[in-house]
């Protein structure tokens, strides 16, 4: 049994959906043109993950193994449709921007992956924690990539924040470079691939540093033990 802190660490860092499992790449690469788009899709995915994990965990003893996959798909598809309808009702502008990517959450393999690999074998509390941390980890990657591409591509950050936070947020937009002519590569799909590659490289670099430090500590600790 994995402990709660381990579940959280797995979701946010060690087994991050976007950077390590590399699942759900289609929405990850396609909608992260801006910070707000990334955040919107991230939150929708987070919500789906939590809801599907909890439902799957609740019914795990009822579902026979032969039909578990169709049942999971049914659960996920229902949840996503409900989220899509609610988004269209309450965040209509954002819904128009994220367009086809909301229904695409159904096909995001990370969701059925977590249902099958984790939620169907664990208690509701653990499944909920896993959904939250995996979803949050994915959202963080979406937001990081979105910010990166928006800053480089458009020279702004938080543009169109009013789509999510209402008219008052219109002034939240930060302009880094006045009269920026834009850097097209960052806006187009290749920019998404390059950006994601960079993020993965940075993560691996940090991991290596941490590992190096841990090894250093171990070697320092040894002679002391010997004496």
């Amino acid at each position, binding site marked *: 049994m994995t402990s709660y802190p381990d579940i959280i660490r797995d979701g946010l860092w060690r087994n991050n959906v976007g950077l390590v499992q590399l699942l759900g790449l289609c929405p990850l690469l396609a909608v992260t043109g801006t910070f707000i788009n990334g955040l919107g899709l991230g939150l929708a995915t987070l919500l789906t993950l939590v809801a599907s994990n909890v439902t799957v965990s609740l019914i795990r003893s009822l579902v*026979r193994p032969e039909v578990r996959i169709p049942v999971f798909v049914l659960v996920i598809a229902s949840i996503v449709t*409900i989220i899509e309808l*609610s988004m*269209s*009702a309450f965040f*209509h502008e954002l819904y*128009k921007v994220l367009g086809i990517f909301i229904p695409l959450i159904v096909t995001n393999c990370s969701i059925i992956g977590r249902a099958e690999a984790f939620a169907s074998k664990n208690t509701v509390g653990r499944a909920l924690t896993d959904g939250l941390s995996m979803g949050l980890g994915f959202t963080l990657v979406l937001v990081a990539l979105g910010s990166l591409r928006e800053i480089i591509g458009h020279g702004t950050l938080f543009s169109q924040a009013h789509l999510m936070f209402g008219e008052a947020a219109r002034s939240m937009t930060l302009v880094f470079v006045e009269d920026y002519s834009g850097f*097209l590569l960052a806006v187009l799909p290749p920019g998404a691939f390059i950006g994601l590659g960079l993020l993965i490289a940075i993560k691996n670099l940090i991991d290596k540093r941490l590992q190096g430090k841990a090894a250093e500590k171990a070697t320092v600790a040894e002679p002391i033990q010997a004496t």
Partner: protein
Amino acid sequence: MTVYRPIAISALFLFLFAVIGAGLVAFTFDSTAEKIAENERRALLKSLNELIPEQRYDNDIFSDVVYVRNSELLGTSEPVPVYRARKDGWPVAAVLAPVAPDGYSGPIRLLVAVNLDGTLAGVRVVQHRETPGLGDAIEAERSDWILGFNRRSLSDPVAERWKVKRDGGAFDQFTGATITPRAVVKAVKEALLYFRADSHELFEKDPIPAAQQ
């Protein structure tokens, strides 16, 4: 018999889940349908009002709509809505929703508002998939280009000059993107041609509620 039992139970279980799932979705659809329709209505009304300011008309422009078909001039074989603005019962302007079928990456959906005298009250892009950073300058939020259509008509510039500058016309193209503005200019011109040919009839027809379309 015993062989089939577990299968039957599984099937029943799956069936139950399908029913519950469908029920939940139906319930959500039912409770949000009104709000979604209202949202769409408000979004459309907002863009209509950008083209024809509210003080210029006093009818319910959203419901005063007819659907017309003309694949040659309106760019689609689908019925195209025409919203009609009236003041004290007199026609003021019509807003057509034609399509520019030859955008760089697919059709561009437009709103073209034409005053009764055939001058343009304005043009807006409703939906497009043009290249971000290049072709998307047709959006009013990104550049002033689309405002260049205001007050133009079929005689200003003359028909041969309803082109982008590169083709010898009167309208700017963008650096690195000619196809997009070319498609929009052509679609606006054809919408004007359609309006000129049909303007009388357009205001006479009885409105058709959107629900019946």
